[in-house]
């Protein structure tokens, strides 16, 4: 089981858009194999950088409104939110070093 908080259509505004922190949202689904691979990597990144970022998950099947709003057409998709805006998108499962370098600006 994932240790990451699940956000929903209902609380996305409050948990992500209005958050004072940098929030990385992992858009995922149960049936997506690559999502299951990248999940544990994101958990590690979340733990190792807990002072700088928060990582949450959004199940695209259960929360279609948010997935549609952010034009998710490929998962896993990881979007970085600051002050309610998407400041970075990463698409596709990547090894930890690759993800870390993509997200480097937010982990430093």
């Amino acid at each position: 089981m994932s240790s990451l908080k699940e956000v929903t259509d209902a609380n996305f505004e409050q948990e992500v858009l209005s958050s004072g922190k940098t929030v990385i949202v992992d858009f995922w689904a149960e049936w997506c194999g690559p999502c299951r691979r990248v999940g544990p990597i994101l958990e590690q990144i979340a733990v190792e950088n807990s002072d700088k970022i928060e990582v949450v998950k959004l199940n695209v099947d259960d929360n279609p409104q948010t997935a549609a709003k952010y034009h998710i057409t490929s998962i896993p998709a990881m979007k970085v939110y600051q002050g309610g805006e998407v400041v970075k998108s990463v698409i596709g499962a990547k090894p930890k070093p690759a993800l870390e370098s993509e997200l480097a600006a937010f982990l430093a």
Partner: protein
Amino acid sequence: MNQMIIIGSGPAGYTAAIYAARAGLAPLVIASSVEVGGELMNTTEVENFPGFPEGIMGPELMEKMQAQAERFDATVIYEDVTSVDLSGEVKKVTLGSGEVHEALSVIVATGSAYRKLGIEHEDRLSGYGISWCATCDGAFFRKHEIAVVGGGDSAMEEANFLTRFADKVYLIHRRDTFRASKIMQDRSKENPKIEILYNSEVSAIHGDTQLSGLTLRDTLTGEERELEVTGLFVAIGNDPRVHLFHGQLDLTVEGTIAVDGRSSKTNLEGVFAAGDVIDPTYRQAVTAAASGTVAALDAEHYLASLPEALLQQATGAVDEGSAPASGSTLDPDGELVSLSDARS
């Protein structure tokens, strides 16, 4: 040091692991961090793997292969190989974590990677309408009109799968005949949601933040037309994944790793290759599995020819990569010894 390292975790890698593990070689399988199980992880129903008369889901088949390898003492780690040094008697494999693993033999089963169209905007719109994985992304195209490009079994499978979601799927193919198997072709031709566009190729991709359409060129007349689609699934084949081995392993003109005849022997002693990375032609789960078997048997034979003193160093598969940071490890009697002692 390990007796054997297997790089890759598709049917070739896992079958090699099953054979090697049953031979008591305790292989270390480096399965990658995000592509564990290989290409079949992205497929749905596999209907042509013998022994499963009702078909089996690709991911389930791969989990079973992994379980079978682990049952016989193969160790599977979810890491990526970043470089290899295969020249000497002792092969060195470096992981993304920086760890270096050594082995007396290496089986390369790295498979192949999706081929790109090589058209402007393809990378920029990847994940924004352009996809290589229908099972991953198909559900986002409910009620959309989308396209699949390709003419092989994977293109047919994707097109059929995508009709579960999309209202219309255009199947774009360069020629007027498909290389896909007859049963897959028939399914596509009979599917009322699929429209096949023969003698067509994608010449341009359009879209600002999302894919909005394609320009298609008629391969016979050169005439161009626009096609409005919100999704494009690319299934035009794969290229062998050989970048780690450039300058060390000989390649064929097709870009696959060159092996000696029907064996798995590469140009380097103790290095074997199996599966799609050596196969430009067949590329099936079953042929990859068979190829993995060949590699395991070849490697076993090679290991048996090595001097006893060298094998002694590897027996028990003392693995410095995962050894405690103190530089110590447990010897077979359970006593803590220093690594340098264990290797002497």
